[in-house]
């Protein structure tokens, strides 16, 4: 529908309605973006449980955006909020938002949980992790991740279905976050102490030195100083190219337009 100017010329509304009707067929066929399986209907189990296997798949494929979409939609399709199965969707959703570094929607997803679910230790820990990540409170982030990992590793953890997916997503989050931090440090520091680097990257010195070398940073063992590999700062090379005839045409066109 790139409908032309719709209004003024006095046309009867009847005519317009006719036009509207004739323009119906195209969108009618597959209505835009409606992928929720129509099968999940009345007596069947709640949509959280239904959609969970899909979420597991999407996690394995690292399709974060799709996972977010599916999970958000599952939530609005569900009529029972207080069911523990709600967590099957919310927890992966929150972790995926974390991976994408989208803190606000993650926070709302957690806060939408009814009190009986929100008060579960896993939800509380996630809430703290969100806060720490939003504030880039490096030491706390790594500590919280440890804590959550420990929590779900308990043999008596309440939702065993969630354990593998939480571990996968949590691991991916921390990998991504560390990578992000590596990039940031290369940008922000020409050198920093090993101790500082440890705080930022949440690695013990042994592992840190390995990781540093993997990133082609250098480490001076005598001074305990880490030198990040500088990332190329030359970000604006292309615009110095001379203007082309094509862009001249574009400009000329525009000016002619102005003259009218």
């Amino acid at each position: 529908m790139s409908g032309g100017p719709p209004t003024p010329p006095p046309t009867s509304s009847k005519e317009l309605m006719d036009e509207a009707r004739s323009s119906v067929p195209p969108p009618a066929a597959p209505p835009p973006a409606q992928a929720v399986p129509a099968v999940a209907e009345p007596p069947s189990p709640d949509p959280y449980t239904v959609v969970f296997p899909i979420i597991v798949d999407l996690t394995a494929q690292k399709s974060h955006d799709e996972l977010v979409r599916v999970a958000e939609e599952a939530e609005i399709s569900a009529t029972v909020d207080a069911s523990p199965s709600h967590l099957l969707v919310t927890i992966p959703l929150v972790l995926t938002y974390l991976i994408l570094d989208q803190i606000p929607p993650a926070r709302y997803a957690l806060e939408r949980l009814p009190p009986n679910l929100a008060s579960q230790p896993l939800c509380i820990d996630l809430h703290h992790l969100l806060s720490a990540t939003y504030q880039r409170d490096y030491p706390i982030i790594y500590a919280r991740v440890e804590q959550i990992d420990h929590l779900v590793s308990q043999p008596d953890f309440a939702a065993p279905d969630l354990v593998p997916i939480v571990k996968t997503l949590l691991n991916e989050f921390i990998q991504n976050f560390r990578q992000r931090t590596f990039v940031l440090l290369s940008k922000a520091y020409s050198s920093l102490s090993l101790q500082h680097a440890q705080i930022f990257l949440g690695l013990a010195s042994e592992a840190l030195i390995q990781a540093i070398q993997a990133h082609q940073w250098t480490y001076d063992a005598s001074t305990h100083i880490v030198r990040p590999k500088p990332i190329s700062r030359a970000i604006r090379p292309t615009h110095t190219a001379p203007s082309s005839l094509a862009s001249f045409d574009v400009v000329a066109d525009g000016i002619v337009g102005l003259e009218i």
Partner: protein
Amino acid sequence: MLDATEQAPSSSKAKKAPTPIVPVDENHPFDLETYIASYEGRVVVDRLVHIITLAPSIAPQALQLAVRHIQTLRDPTLYPVAVAAYDQAASLSPGQLPSASEVATINQKWVDETSAKNQSERMKLEVELKTYTNNMIKESIRMAHRDLGEFYRSVGEYGTALRHFTKSREFCTTNQHILEMCLSVLELLIEQRNYSHVPTYIFKAEAALDQAAAGGENPKGAVGTKSKATAEREKYQTKLDFALALSQLGQGMYEKAAHTFLKLGLPGKLGDWSGKLVASGDIAVYGTLCALASMSRSAIKSRVLENETFSVYIEQEPYVRDIVDAYMSNRFKAVLDLLEKYSTRHYLDLYLSSHVHDLTNLIRNRAIVLYFQPFSSIKLERMSSVFGWTVEEVERQVVALIQSGDIQARVDSQHKILKAKQVDPRAQLYAKALKAGSEMQSANRKLLLRMRLQQADLIVKQPKNQKQDSAAMASASQMSDYIQIGD
């Protein structure tokens, strides 16, 4: 027309201007006797009172001079004014000044005689006015108003004086009369430092001059008229320009004031205003400081240094030329030192006083900007020796100038270096164009939507929808404050 009530705020504002204590010592020379000798009439007392308030160290001397001079005038109310200013100065530096009565004695006999004389003079003039009004002799009424204006002015009743002057306007029959009236009012306004109305009367005066030139009062002398009109104009132009310049200075329009001061005619053209209102040395100071504070170096060169007429004024205050010379040869420390040295002279000037602070700041800022211009980077230390400040002071000044956009540079606070910003004009242009483009696009999109809404007549209107509107608001505000802070 203005009246006394309109004057009140501006004159009280002038009084409110910050009154620093101004030192008079070997570093801040000021010779009161020589200084005051340049003036005559009432302005002498006005200036002395101003000096009493600002410079306690010479207040006793100033009070003596004032008391002595008051007796040459006819306004006994000046006595208490001078004494009150002195008492206030004394109270600000307790124990350091002798009491007013020890310094000067008031000639009570003179007071009584003068008051009586004034009383009878007023009676006489008022009666005259009444008589003329009854006889309806226009010219005589005008003169009666004028005389009353002059009388009230001399006894310090400015509001009444102004009323009579402006009233006389109705009975003016020639342009010459209008001109005369305007000049009287201008004098009054300047004495009162009531600047906002000055341009009005200058405008009226110039209109009268124009009319005189165009009207050709006497067709027979057509050949002579033109030159006569020009001569007439020349006679008044400098006075009018001075009034304008002073009002511009008074209102803080320094650049305009500079231009106007610098085009004044020779001091002689000021006629009776020279001394009665201002000394030609004052004009040298006003014009130069305003020029330094607002003009480019080349303009200063052509408009000040190469200005033969203005150099006549400068001759009256040779130190002014030293300041300009130092400024033009980049000896900024000398400029600042001279400004400091003569700050007393400047603060004690009735018209300049409240602008000294701003003018000095402006001159200093321009000096810093000027100094930095040729450099791409410079150590703050070097600037500190040029301007005679500590490095911290330099940094503070420079940072302020960067933030106000006067200097295109940044401070390397670690190494104490000032570095010019590198600009890539091409990249900037591109970036700017792109930004403008995307802004325009989003603006256009909104505009388009707006036009569609208008075409469909979906316009917020007053009456019947109000209830609905507030209902919608109620539901909208139910979207309570979900927006959280990321704690």
